[in-house]
């Protein structure tokens, strides 16, 4: 049974590892290249003030359109967020802070409390990134950079926890507790305290 478990874990980890090694460079690079091409093309076209090729409009359509009016140079004015929105987001952030504190005091089970805390923190972080850091209405490349960063953090967390959370697999509970107690009594840090034996 233990050998079976170990085999499953090994095969699973190998599969995940291979998937990352093989798929990431190809899929990731292709996606990044496509994204970059589209974003750069659109962005440059926007800066130059000409319609981008990827808009794919027929010449007749273009001709039918009235000649473009010289754009007023106030286009940086309408990117400015009104004060009310900033203050509103700030108030929501403060309320959410209150919510996290309140949730931590109602005596949820620690595991549920952590999930609640992380969910609220993620909502807060999203608000800060979208509105205070102007990512929502900003250009595409920073979004791509942030998404890539978050993706690799998830890879990092997943692979690390796949190791840490399975280290005690195969140890019987009694043996496990005995092993932990012996290590602690000897003043050492036991390698791999991984089985959550108590829910308290």
């Amino acid at each position, binding site marked *: 049974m233990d050998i079976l478990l170990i085999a499953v874990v090994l095969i699973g980890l190998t599969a995940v590892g291979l998937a990352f090694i093989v798929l990431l460079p190809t899929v990731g690079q292709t996606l990044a290249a496509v994204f970059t091409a589209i974003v750069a093309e659109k962005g440059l076209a926007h800066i130059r003030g000409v319609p981008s090729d990827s808009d794919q409009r027929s010449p007749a359509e273009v001709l039918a359109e009235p000649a473009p009016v010289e754009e007023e140079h106030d286009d940086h004015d309408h990117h*400015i967020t009104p004060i009310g929105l900033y203050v509103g987001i*700030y108030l929501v952030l403060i309320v959410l*802070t209150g919510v996290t504190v309140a949730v931590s005091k109602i005596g949820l089970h*620690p595991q549920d409390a952590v999930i609640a*805390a992380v969910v609220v*923190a993620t909502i807060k*972080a999203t608000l800060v990134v979208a509105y*205070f850091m102007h990512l929502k209405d900003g250009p595409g490349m920073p979004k791509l950079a942030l998404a890539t960063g978050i993706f690799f953090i998830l890879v*990092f967390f997943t692979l690390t926890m796949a190791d840490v959370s399975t280290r005690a697999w195969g140890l019987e509970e009694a043996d496990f507790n005995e092993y932990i107690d012996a290590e602690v009594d000897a003043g050492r840090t036991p390698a791999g305290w991984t089985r959550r034996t108590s829910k308290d």
Partner: protein
Amino acid sequence: MSERAERPEWVEHWFESAEQQLSAASLGMWLFLVQEILFFSGLFMAYICYRWMYPRTWLEAAEQLDWVLGTVNTAVLLTSSLTMALAVRSVRMNELKRAQAELWATISLGAVFLVIKAFEYAHKFHEGMLPGPAYAFDGVEGMGKVFFGIYFAATGLHALHVIIGLGLLAWVSHRIRKKLLTSERYVLIENIGLYWHLVDLVWIFLFPMLYLVK
């Protein structure tokens, strides 16, 4: 469109236009911020691993942190993020005087955050909850020193970011005074603003994970 004529003298010659230079600077800042997020994710990973390994110790040790001070500090940092966003806005609206006031409000709030943090640290040092081998607190069963090691590493690096941020904000204020930062040439304050919001972001996650783990 007479782009040539409108080209300000601070636009480097390898950029097509001011907009292109500004968006390049913004993208560069974002790449740096993503690197910072990855850097802090290492600390969060350590937190998750060790919490998984020592769940009971974690709950006990977190009791030692003062959640009231933590909550106050969260509010302080969120408010400083608001004043920072308003300062960036004021610069873009060409209200430089107001921007200066908002910048200095941000700096003051950052300083308040550090002062509160210093009181927390002083209290912990006094109780013997020191980082690493100096740990001499016996109020927590088990691996309390692991928790406090991560606590000091995470909040210490975060505080270092706050200190650097304060210096950068003072520099921005100086540039505005010297008229090197204007409503047209606003990318510096915008980028420093992004950095300041990142410091806030990190704290948004650190606060519940360290102070409110019950």
